[in-house]
């Protein structure tokens, strides 16, 4: 099987979908000496994990990210008739399995919350449910033995892909099988300064500069390069050897990553950004991002075409320097005027559905 899968995406996001800081300003990064818009990998991963595409594809094989397991247990225990005080003791012990309890502030009701979010898989939740039943039936606090709720390899595709970290019990950490880079624009970001710089264009009524690309939402935020790398072996290992589920997870991720985009602020845009271009690679070679293609910001009118040309040129340049970067490549392009990939080696071109099949064939 191919050890690594790499996905390189070019997606045009409208401003509504940007990842913003606490002052509402879009997040940025400096690359190649120029400022770019940035969408953090956390934001991307969350978008994909919570997308309906992902949930439908992986239904019961998804985890839950929460701080409130203790509170949920407490509520259920009380509901089933356990005395408040005993239920509170149980809830504290249960919450303690997953992390350090957050101290309740003065005058704040105890919520049995833990300090960090924890990602738990379906059978871990089931074990927790079973424990609650037992405790109610036997009306006691949990023993050491009852509290073995965690699994080393939970059967949750999202945990297997993105990993998890349990500060309190590191032996139950799961090494992420999928790495996601922050998405950055291939061109420079507009800043207030641009409004100062652009005064001259305003004064001379020069209409012919044309918009870089005004997205369907009316005004464009940027064309982003996103890089995703999946370690297939690690993924299968995380899923306890279930390669069937691993392939489902890969397919779901490819689908979600190309067809959903973050909604930094849910608002009137209701925008949906599909990737304009996807280059998928499979092979055993060491993975590498192609972001070097955009060290010099893309400028001018045809940003999308230019960006694709640069991306393929960069892949070819790496091939030339280090040998083929992948065994097989597959391109999905939704760019009017895009004909054939200028890449060496085995390259196919097709639809997203065909890409998903092609990924499966590499197992």
């Amino acid at each position, binding site marked *: 099987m191919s050890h690594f899968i790499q996905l390189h995406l070019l997606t045009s996001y409208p*401003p*509504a979908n940007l990842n*913003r800081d606490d*002052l*509402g*300003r879009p997040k*940025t990064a*400096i690359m190649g*000496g*120029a*400022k770019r818009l940035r969408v953090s990998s956390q934001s991307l991963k969350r978008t994909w994990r919570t997308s309906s595409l992902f949930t439908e594809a992986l239904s019961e094989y998804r985890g839950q990210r929460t701080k409130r397991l203790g509170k949920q247990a407490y509520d259920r225990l009380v509901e089933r008739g356990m005395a408040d005080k005993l239920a509170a003791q149980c809830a504290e012990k249960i919450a303690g399995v997953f992390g350090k309890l957050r101290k309740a502030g003065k005058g704040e009701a105890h919520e049995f919350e833990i300090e960090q979010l924890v990602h738990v898989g379906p059978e871990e939740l089931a074990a927790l449910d079973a424990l609650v039943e037992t405790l109610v039936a036997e009306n006691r606090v949990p023993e050491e033995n009852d509290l073995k709720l965690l699994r080393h390899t939970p059967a949750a595709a999202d945990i297997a892909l993105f990993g998890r970290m349990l500060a309190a019990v590191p032996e139950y950490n799961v090494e992420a099988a999928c790495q996601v880079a922050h998405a950055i624009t291939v061109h420079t970001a*507009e*800043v*207030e*300064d*641009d*409004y*100062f710089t*652009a*005064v*001259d*264009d*305003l*004064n*001379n*009524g*020069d*209409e012919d*500069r044309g*918009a*870089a690309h*005004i997205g369907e*939402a*009316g*005004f464009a935020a940027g064309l982003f390069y996103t890089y995703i790398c999946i370690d297939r072996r690690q993924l299968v290992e995380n899923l306890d050897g279930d390669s069937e589920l691993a392939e489902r997870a890969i397919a779901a991720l490819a689908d979600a990553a190309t067809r959903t985009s973050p909604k930094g*602020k*849910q*608002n*009137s*845009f209701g925008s949906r950004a599909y990737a304009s271009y996807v280059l998928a690679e499979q092979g055993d070679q060491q993975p590498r991002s192609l972001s070097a293609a955009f060290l010099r910001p893309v400028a001018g009118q045809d940003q999308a075409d230019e960006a694709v040309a640069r991306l393929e040129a960069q892949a070819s340049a790496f091939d030339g320097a280090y040998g083929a970067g992948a065994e097989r490549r597959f391109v999905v392009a939704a760019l009017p005027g895009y004909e054939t990939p200028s890449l060496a080696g085995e390259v196919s071109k097709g639809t997203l559905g065909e890409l998903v099949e092609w990924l499966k064939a590499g197992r």
Partner: protein
Amino acid sequence: MYLSRVRVDLNGLSRESLFEIMGGGAYAAHQLLWQLFPGHDGARPFLFRQEMEEGDASQNKAPKGLPLFYLLSDREPAASQGLLEVQCKPFAPTLAVGDQLAFRLRANPTVARRVAGAKHSPRSDVLMAAKKPFPPGQRTSTECVHAMDAAARDWLETRAEGSGFRLPVAPEVGAYRQHALNKPGRRDAIQFSSVDYEGLLEVTDPGRLIETLAQGVGRAKAFGCGLLLVRRP
């Protein structure tokens, strides 16, 4: 008109005023910028907007986090002690009906409502008004945030036509802030709020829009609100 980009000189400022400006003290900023118009006596001849130096290595050497001002004035600002660098450009946009412009605006979105028996119509903040119906526990809920964003958008939408433009797409709204300024010699703090808009506008009446640019949008203009920044997209 003139549009200027103004940076601050650390050597020419007292520590107090620098800290106050860096803390977003719009009153100190307002006083500082007045120094660019020495001897001027009359109505405030400028609008401004305060930003922060991004410390972008490729652009300038100013360290990150220092205040940076954009200033629109009806006369050329004079260089001044305490203001490091004033880059100034004549600002005389050539606009036609149908032109689309990218814009940014920091505004104080208030409406004046007549109250029976009161001499003045008290002004109220439209975002606050949108927030009010929600019980305290729900004020960070998505619904409440939506309602506030919608109120902020409506505020600009209702002003657009009379200001010479229309909004072909809903603008982005963000950075809603409450300010309280202490003016020396005043007992109470001056309170106002601001919200940042960003989006695309279409020119419907060039003459009217140029007037709007000169006069600013909304209130609290002495405190860095109302400057409509535009550029060709």
